[in-house]
Structures are given as C-alpha cells and as structure tokens.
C-alpha cells in the first residue's frame, strides 16, 4: 500500500476508492468579498520556472540542489495537496479500466506535456492522448487555452476502448492528481515527452510507481522481444544468455505494458505488497 493508500485508501487501493474523485459541481461565491479580478490564475510559467531552477541548481552543488528539490516538493504539496511532491502514479491497464468505471464524467483532451515539450497539438479525437475525469471538466471553456482542441465526452465503454488502443500503441498509463483526494485525469505517457515521468526518473518526484511488478514465466517466454520494446523504464531487457525476457523488478514501475504486449501471456503482474523487499520501493 502506497502513501496515498495509507492516507486516503480506507483499506483499499486509493485510486479504486470512489471518494478520491472530483465531487461537487458548484461553489457559491463568498458573500461580502468582491470576485477575483481577471487573470487571477496561477502564473502559467510557475511550474516550468521551478523545473528550470532545479536544473540551474545542478550547476551550484549538492546542498543547493537538495534545497531546491525540497522547495519544489513542498511547493507542490502546498499548491496541489500532494504529499512529498507525488502528483501521479503508474497504473496498469486493468486498473485504468476500473478507474473509468468510477470516474464520471470522462472527456478526452489534449496532453499538456506534449503541448509544452513538443509544441504538439491534439485537436481531433483520434489525436487526443489524455483523459480528464470529473465534474470540473464541464467548465473547460473557462480556460480554453489549457484545453486547446476542446473535450470529447466518452462513455465508460468508449473510454476503455480508447485506453486499450493507446496501450496497444505502447503508451504507459498513469493517474494525475489535482488537489488532495482528487484524481483528475488518466495520462498516457512516454519518456521524455511526459514531464511527470521525466521528473520522476531524473529527479525523483511527481510519479509514484504502481501497485504491481511484472514477472516472467520462463516456460512460456519464447524470447520474441516484443516486451523489451514496450518498457519505458529500462527495467526489461532480453536476457541474452537465456534468450528470454529479463525484468529488473527494482526498476519496474508496474505499468503492465509488457504484460499486455506479450502474445503468449508469459508475463503477469503480481502485487508489490506480496514481495517483501519491494513493498517500500515506490
């Protein structure tokens, strides 16, 4: 059980607990207080500048770097209600499918990371690689610049189909949190275009590992190598000696891409909690 399960799980995996999804639709304005002036939104460059300062700190020395990292993690906790700067978590396809059964409404949107990192625009439904969850999405027209391309509403079945399609292509699924107890989206990522993954792998915050790790059944594996192309984390390679897939479970994020890609069903996901030495490896 991860830190968010301890905090908000109520005994279950936290992202399968319906209490952790967006909830109320309306907030009445405060009486006696004038509405916020236009442009009251957070500085759009805020997060990018924080990342930049982290990179700058690499030039200054270990103390400065650690202090900047702490500042960034604490800042995210303050702004987003996260804990330790953990905004997201890797989620295997099977759990992502359960998540779309819980979350409503669901809308396909453009990926903000691909927008920032590649200048990529996703303006039509087949291009869209991100899914927003919950009632806040109904108000997307407030900030159309963020959504560039709008929202395509999907039913639970359509959402699952869309997830399976992206899984086939090799995107890893993750959830994103926007505020405490508030799962706001399912991302489909790849390094280094996904900012959350890049921050995790390079600097150690933003995306937690998932609740599973992958294991190979050596009797079933025929060494075809498809899984090795799908691993985003350098955790899975072809073991040359045995001519079979080899997984470094310390590195495995439990995204399950190797499992869904294996044509022979030779890879399965086991719960992290069942492997004593991996229980605390997040």
């Amino acid at each position, binding site marked *: 059980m991860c830190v968010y399960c301890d905090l908000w799980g109520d005994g279950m995996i936290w992202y399968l607990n319906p209490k952790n999804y967006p909830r109320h639709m309306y907030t009445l304005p405060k009486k006696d207080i004038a509405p916020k002036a236009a442009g009251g939104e957070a500085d759009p460059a805020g997060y990018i500048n924080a990342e930049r300062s982290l990179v700058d700190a*690499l030039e200054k020395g270990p103390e400065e770097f650690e202090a900047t990292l702490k500042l960034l993690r604490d800042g995210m906790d303050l702004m987003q209600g996260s804990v330790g700067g953990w905004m997201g978590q890797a989620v295997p396809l099977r759990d992502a499918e359960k998540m779309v059964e819980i979350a409503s409404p669901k809308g396909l949107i453009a990926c903000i990371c691909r927008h920032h990192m590649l200048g990529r625009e996703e303006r039509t439904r087949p291009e869209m690689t991100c899914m927003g969850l919950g009632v806040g999405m109904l108000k997307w027209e407030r900030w159309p610049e963020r959504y560039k391309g709008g929202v395509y509403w999907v039913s639970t079945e359509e959402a699952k189909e869309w997830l399976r399609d992206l899984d086939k292509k090799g995107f890893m699924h993750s959830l994103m949190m926007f505020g405490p107890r508030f799962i706001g989206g399912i991302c489909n990522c790849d390094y*280094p275009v996904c900012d959350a993954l890049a921050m995790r792998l390079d600097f150690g915050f933003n995306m937690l590992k998932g609740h599973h790790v992958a294991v190979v059944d050596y009797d079933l594996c025929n060494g075809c190598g498809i899984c090795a192309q799908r691993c985003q984390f350098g955790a899975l390679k072809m073991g040359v000696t045995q001519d079979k897939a080899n997984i470094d479970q310390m590195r495995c994020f439990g995204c399950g891409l190797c499992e869904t890609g294996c044509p022979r069903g030779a890879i399965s996901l086991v719960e992290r909690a069942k492997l004593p030495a991996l229980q605390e490896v997040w």
Partner: protein
Amino acid sequence: MVDKSQLKIPRPIPVDLTKLPLKLPKIEIDYSKCTVPFWCKKCLQVCPQVVFQVYCKQLVKLRESDPREPGVYQVIAVRRDKCNVCNKCIDVCPEDAITITY
C-alpha cells in the same frame, strides 16, 4: 484521520550528488527574434533530448490564444542538463535566435 508525520513518504534522489556541481551548456534565446515559437516549433521538434518547453504567457478566460500572434507564447530551454550541444536547434531556427555556449 491519518497522522501525516507518521507516513512513509518516498523521497528518492536519482541524481548523483557527489558529481555536483555539473557543468551545463548555457542556452540563450533572443526573444526579440523568436516571437511565434508555438507556430514555428522547429526547435521543439528537432531536439532529441527534449530540452525546450513552450508555454502560453497569458491565459485568457473564455478565449484560446493565437499562436500566430507575436509574443503570446515563449520557448524556454528548461532541461539544459540533457543538452548534448548537437546544435541542431541552432541549425533549424529560422530566426537565428538560439545561442549555446559550453
């Protein structure tokens, strides 16, 4: 309610602290030349290390910003730590706005 101070919060640091400080390339962008980066996006797409990021400087309520309008978007070299000074971005920039020193 769970006591937050009792939580086991993972705090890995994948950076090798013993190797700091690092020497990183300096990447400068002349914003008087680079005015419509989201419309051009050549440096963003050519960089093998995804060093650059582009963002909209001013979000406006109820209206999408026009990337063809000068000054609406800005490109920043965020991940200088990953830059290998291949200079592809300099070659591809139509405005000669990028300089890299190492």
